[in-house]
């Protein structure tokens, strides 16, 4: 029975508070559906479902703080869910209920005392149930291949042969935890279907779907040195029940800001502690881009206008696609390329703090679409309505401090990403073109890159690519 668990929505997240459920038991859900709103140290995040099925039980109440990986809900696979008659739950006096106290063989109990109510797996014959019992196979974990997905004798035998626990090498298991890969999504290619590290890496590369893609290493990974990441006695996000009912909103906002500060602090400290950064920067002539943009915007209603940042982002996305060595993650002493260019955009929040949601598939978006998506993303980031996949999928991040009049920014990489691109303000400067001095708009772009993953040459190629792309804005 797939359990829907508290997702890790960033390398700095240890736990989250369920703010609101958007589904109720009995609701059909699909992979990617938004099912709950979870409050983290950073923001309220809309959390997507990773599986198809029917919500069977909600295990966490709104207001409850659940650690990353802790159960939130039980989702019955489509087809396996049998609507339990409501009266079942009102039968604690029935003789069958007393059996629930002793460990009943899986699948054999007709009525289990709630919670959680176990739906009866469909079997092709009662003999199959007996066989499962004999072989110690949990029918709930067996996928039926018979008529109407009923579990057959062969299914039980197969499950017994394989064992209900998948064969996973220790390294693969650790890697999957670090990369946030669900081992159920991984096809093992080793002997007897054993999942090996290579299979996990394969899955990461093949999976571009939101939610299933790479999630940064949770801070509470088994390898984390406890002393390096002290757990703070005061919960980062105070639980509803813990907070006095009279707590002023302002106070909670302050707590939240402090928690966010700590979260950013931990992540940035980890970055500077672990990542040997190198930095390159160049100044790009923006005259062609600005002229082209100006002409284009003149023809457009305000709602359709582009800001220069849209061009910078698109150029960065295209360059990241052409220089894939900078687009991905450094995991377990090796580089894992990103499944696509998901551009993380550093968005400062009013009142302090920062989020870096991902603009999915940025290299494939038309400029107008990219602009619309960026506006939407910024709006939702500030309103605290980001989606889980947006917070975890970024493969490379862009920070743009140009609006503040800053001329250049040399940023800190977001682990486990391997590069961060910084843009300053587009400013007018004396500029030599064709032997003549003129006044041109220019922008300074900087890349901070992980020296474990790439060398300066690669970073240089990347910056040069951005510069060249911006010389032909009509092709962006």
């Amino acid at each position, binding site marked *: 029975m797939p359990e829907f668990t508290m997702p890790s929505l960033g390398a700095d997240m240890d736990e989250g508070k369920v703010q609101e459920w958007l589904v109720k038991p009995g609701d059909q859900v699909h992979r990617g559906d938004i099912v709950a709103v979870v409050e983290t140290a950073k923001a309220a995040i809309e959390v997507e479902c990773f599986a198809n099925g029917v919500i069977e039980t909600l295990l966490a109440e709104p207001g409850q703080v659940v650690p990353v990986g802790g159960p939130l809900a039980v989702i019955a696979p489509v087809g396996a869910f049998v609507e339990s008659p409501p009266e079942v739950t009102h039968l604690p006096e029935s003789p069958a209920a007393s059996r629930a106290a002793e460990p009943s063989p899986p699948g054999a109990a007709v009525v289990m005392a709630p919670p959680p109510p176990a739906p009866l797996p469909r079997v092709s014959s009662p003999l199959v149930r007996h066989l499962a019992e004999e072989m110690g196979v949990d029918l709930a974990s067996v996928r039926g291949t018979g008529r109407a997905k009923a579990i057959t004798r062969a299914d039980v035998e197969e499950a017994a042969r394989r064992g209900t626990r998948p064969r996973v090498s220790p390294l693969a298991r650790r890697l999957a935890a670090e990369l946030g890969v669900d081992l159920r999504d991984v096809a093992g290619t080793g002997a007897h279907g054993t999942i090996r590290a290579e299979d996990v890496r394969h899955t990461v590369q093949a999976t571009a779907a939101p939610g299933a893609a790479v999630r940064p290493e949770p801070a509470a990974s088994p390898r984390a040195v406890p002393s390096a990441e002290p757990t703070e006695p005061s919960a980062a996000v105070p639980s509803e029940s813990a907070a006095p009912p009279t707590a002023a909103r302002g106070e909670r906002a302050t707590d939240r800001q402090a928690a966010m500060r700590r979260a950013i602090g931990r992540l940035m400290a980890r970055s500077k502690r672990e990542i040997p950064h190198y930095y390159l920067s160049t100044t790009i002539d923006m005259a062609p881009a600005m002229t082209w943009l100006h002409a284009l*915007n003149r023809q457009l209603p305000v709602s359709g206008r582009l800001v220069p940042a849209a061009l910078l982002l698109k150029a960065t996305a295209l360059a990241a696609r052409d220089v894939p060595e900078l687009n991905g993650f450094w995991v377990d002493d090796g580089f894992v390329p990103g499944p696509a260019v998901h551009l993380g955009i550093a968005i400062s929040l009013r009142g302090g703090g920062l989020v870096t949601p991902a603009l999915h598939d940025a290299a494939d978006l038309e400029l107008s679409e990219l602009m619309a998506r960026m506006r939407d993303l910024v709006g939702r980031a500030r309103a605290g309505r980001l989606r889980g996949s947006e917070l975890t999928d970024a493969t490379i991040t862009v920070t743009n401090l140009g*609006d503040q009049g800053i001329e250049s920014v040399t940023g800190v990489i977001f682990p486990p990403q391997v590069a961060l691109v910084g843009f300053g303000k587009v400013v007018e400067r004396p500029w030599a073109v064709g032997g003549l001095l003129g006044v041109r708009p220019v922008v300074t772009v900087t890349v901070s890159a992980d020296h474990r993953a790439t060398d300066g040459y690669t970073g240089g190629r990347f910056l040069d690519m951005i510069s060249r792309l911006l010389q032909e804005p009509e092709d962006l």
Partner: protein
Amino acid sequence: MTPDQARDIIIDALHQVAPEIDIDMVKGDAEFRDSVELDSLDFLNFVELVSKRSGVRIDEDDYPELATVDSCVDFLAGKA
């Protein structure tokens, strides 16, 4: 459009773009970017709102005239 109507539109739009600011604290001659911390996307949202509500077309070339509350009022009042 009277200056007061223009001011209402502008204050309203600002409030919508940056709901957390105290509009009364914004001085008429202070630049938005500093006083309200508008970035380029916020500003675009602001221009869009003002343009829609006032019916005044605002081009990029007009942006320099929209730096403060007072200059916005002058611009709108002068156009419509």
